[in-house]
């Protein structure tokens, strides 16, 4: 890693006009995705700038102090900070220019050389230009407004990730009597964490009829502490003048909160773990086409978005369950970005379509001359499901999936031999479905 400050001194200091730096590849965001992508770019001998708005590298991994990371990437069970530290050490050893505390506010991507305007207290406003850009900005949490929970607007309503940051990094305890909305893994992990810092977690409220998080987290984060999980329930009202005083919880009947069977829980804190949204505002302003199912970019078999030379990976592309898969996906994006610089592009690609019971599939294109890993999500809950891949309505591959549910991302490896021997036409379509 070249310290960005010295690079900056060499190229910019004392110059008139906009400070400008040039690279082969610019990676925006230094979480699990950005770190893996930048490392791969550097390994392939292209010059790389990695821009991160926080003062630390590792993104959200740093506050995920629980274990469960790294089983695929490092073949051992690590915590988030340990996972990040391994990535960071690799990037430090590599030839990557790292800019922390630097926010990209604008991306102009229509020309061959892309330009990003970066704001920093140290460097002022920088213009970083690069031939390829990898978007790795991650995601943000859905909040109270997004789920439109009615009631008063007191202090004490936090997204789970903000609470996690406050507790794990800053060392503050936001509240003592907690109700958690959403049984996704972040919500479950926070139930245990809040208990372990001395708070009482009264309940976890889940709108779906099944838990959204991993079963092992239900056991070790809720059952261990006898925290009740209410499935098919919603928090239908928040009450409290200055600080949360109680919430109203309602069972859902035919999808509608049933007022008659509602009950109240006294609490001073409500944590929301109600989903994540890829943070693509920068991408959208740059003109990147977005997939309405994922809220991430539409990418081809090389992770390239609708704009030539702009790639996307990790949670900004689609929200993952595992940091390991984020890193794997980002490595591919890094390699493909370098391939793009060298004019190594697929000779042909075919469209991949989400078929029956599949919410989305990423990427949206397949290169029949290259193996690829497809990530997808189910629309149904089922044990012993069957995955079917059809090429122009003809089955080419079938797999058994022991268990599928919408909250668990699935993947399948697709190889050239899977479609070899079939007549591939310009408008051929691969359809992935679950039965």
């Amino acid at each position, binding site marked *: 890693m070249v310290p960005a400050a010295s690079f900056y001194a060499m190229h910019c200091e004392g110059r008139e*006009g*906009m*400070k400008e730096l040039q690279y082969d590849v610019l990676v925006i965001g230094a979480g699990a995705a950005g770190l893996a992508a930048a490392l791969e770019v550097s390994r392939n001998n292209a010059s790389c700038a990695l821009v991160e*708005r926080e003062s630390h590298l590792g993104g959200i991994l740093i506050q995920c102090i629980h274990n469960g990371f790294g089983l695929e990437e490092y073949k051992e069970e690590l915590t988030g900070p340990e996972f990040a530290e391994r990535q960071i050490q690799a990037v430090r050893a590599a030839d990557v220019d790292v800019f922390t*505390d630097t*926010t990209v*506010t*604008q991306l102009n991507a229509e020309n061959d050389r892309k330009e990003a*305007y970066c*704001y*920093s*207290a*140290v*460097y*002022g*406003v920088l*213009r970083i230009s690069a031939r390829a850009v990898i978007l790795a900005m991650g995601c*943000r*949490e859905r*909040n*109270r*407004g*997004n789920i*439109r929970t*009615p*009631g*008063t*607007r*007191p*202090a*004490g309503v936090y*997204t789970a*990730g*903000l609470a996690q*940051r*406050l*507790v794990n990094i*800053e*060392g*503050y*305890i*936001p*509240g*003592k009597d907690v109700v958690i909305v959403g049984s996704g893994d972040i919500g479950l992990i926070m139930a245990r964490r809040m208990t372990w*810092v*001395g708070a009482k977690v009264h309940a976890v409220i889940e709108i779906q009829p099944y838990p959204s998080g991993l079963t092992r987290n239900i056991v070790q984060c809720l059952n261990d502490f006898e925290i009740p999980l209410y499935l098919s329930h919603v928090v*239908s*009202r928040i*009450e409290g*003048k*200055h*600080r949360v005083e109680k919430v109203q919880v309602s069972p859902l009947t035919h999808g509608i*909160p049933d007022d008659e069977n509602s009950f109240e829980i006294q609490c*001073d*804190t409500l944590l929301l773990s109600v989903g994540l949204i890829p943070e693509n*505002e920068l991408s*959208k302003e740059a003109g990147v086409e977005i997939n309405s199912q994922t809220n991430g970019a539409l990418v081809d078999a090389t992770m390239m978005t609708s704009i030539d030379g702009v790639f996307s990976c990790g949670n900004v592309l689609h929200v993952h369950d595992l940091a390991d898969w984020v890193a794997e996906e980002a490595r591919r994006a890094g390699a493909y970005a370098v391939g793009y610089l060298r004019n190594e592009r697929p000779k042909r690609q075919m469209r991949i379509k989400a078929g029956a019971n599949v919410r989305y599939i990423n990427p949206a294109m397949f290169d029949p001359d290259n193996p690829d890993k497809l990530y997808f999500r189910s629309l149904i809950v089922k044990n012993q499901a069957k995955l079917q891949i059809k090429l122009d309505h003809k089955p080419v591959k079938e797999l058994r999936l022991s268990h599928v549910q919408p909250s668990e991302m699935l993947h399948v490896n697709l190889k050239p031999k899977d479609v070899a021997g079939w007549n591939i036409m310009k408008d051929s379509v691969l359809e992935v479905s679950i039965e």
Partner: protein
Amino acid sequence: MASTDAAALRVDVAIVGAGLSGSCIARQLSAYKLDVVLLDKECDVSMGVSRANSGIVHGGFHHNLKYLKSRLEIRGNLMYDRLQRELDFPFKRCGILVAALNDEEMKYIDHLYTQGVENGAIGIEMCSRERMFELEPKLNPDCVGGLHAPGGGVLEPYRFVFSVVESAQKNGVEVVTGFEVVHAERAGERYRIHAADGRQMEARYVVNAAGLFADRVSEIFGAEEFQIIPRKGEYFLLDRATEAAPQRVLFPVPTKVSKGMLVIPTVEGTVLIGPTAQEIEDKEDLSTNTDQLNLILDQARKMVPKVSQTDVITAFSGLRPALADGDFYIDISAKAPNFIQVAGIQSPGLTAAPAIGEYVKDLVKKAGCSLVEKAEWDPYVSKLPRIRDLGPYEADNLVNANPAYGNVVCRCEEISEAEIVEAIHRGHTTLDGIKYFTRAGMGRCQGGFCSYKIIKLLIRETGISYKDIQKCGAGSELLRDAL
């Protein structure tokens, strides 16, 4: 808000309520050789009625001139351009459209047009269907025509109040927050005013601009009896990226109770839809309710079909402090000496506020207070740079002068550390105060990413304990404990 702690202040004029009306009155009076104090019960100014409303400078066609509110609306509207030059608050005359969805409604448009012309609303125009779609392509295709009032505009009410108060303070007005008036008695030629926390002050003249609580304050001073009826309005705020953003403020044809539910392109680029109109009893009930919120989406879609619930970033409600006759009540009290009533300031209160300031200044004079102009009165406040308004070159210069402008704290609204620190130094020391002053936390993530950074800045700049960091005033502490 930078607040005076003086326990036993003696002033010429005390204004109760630091909302739109109170602050405009204070600024008008700051031009004269008077000791003026602006009191508010909340932790910051503009935290009552003026915190949550539509933020519309109206076009002068909704009300008949027989109403005081209509006369003040016309006058107030005309005062905004100069105020913007002096006070540096975001304001845009984007214009207003009233859309008729059938021929029956078109008849009412006819009435509004005639009324607007009689009121002297500048540039008001009857529009054909074609003209409406030329002005606003996103309108419901059922629109048959409507009214265009180019003089209407949008601003952020709290941001306007902050600027007005700053100007008033610069010219000598004392601001005392957290001062809830609970008792008053005559002490010679003065009123002795008591706050809930035991503080006292004395004033020769008192202006009652207490919004929802004007009835209570009137009673405390032994003045007229009346009743303020809170009428709740709920809103949804939509992400600035919404495809539903119109060019102009879109009104439906008004109903008997309100001007109807609007689609408002806010001056800061987000979109506001609402408000509902519901009479309630509790003056502190700012809750939102599912049925009302569903109504907003339905009604807003009648104006702009592209309104989508996935664009919603937050919901909130405000209360209109209405009197039974629907008009403003601004007059010298006939019962309490040297007491001026400024009550019932509901819509178009924001539009009228500058004119209310002027009008009440004259009432203070009429009540016997001598107004001698100050030579040194300065109508201008210092401009506060915001990086979101600047291009990269200008921003770079700013960062060179003060590196904290380069640290983007609120990513959604692009607010820098320097802007937040400035807000704190100007006395906005709660999360809401900072949010309303700078917009940090007002965007799509609603503070999910920047809250902890702002908490840290607050601790660094003020030295207060983490335990005392509040969302908005006592009782709203954010952090219960530390590890």
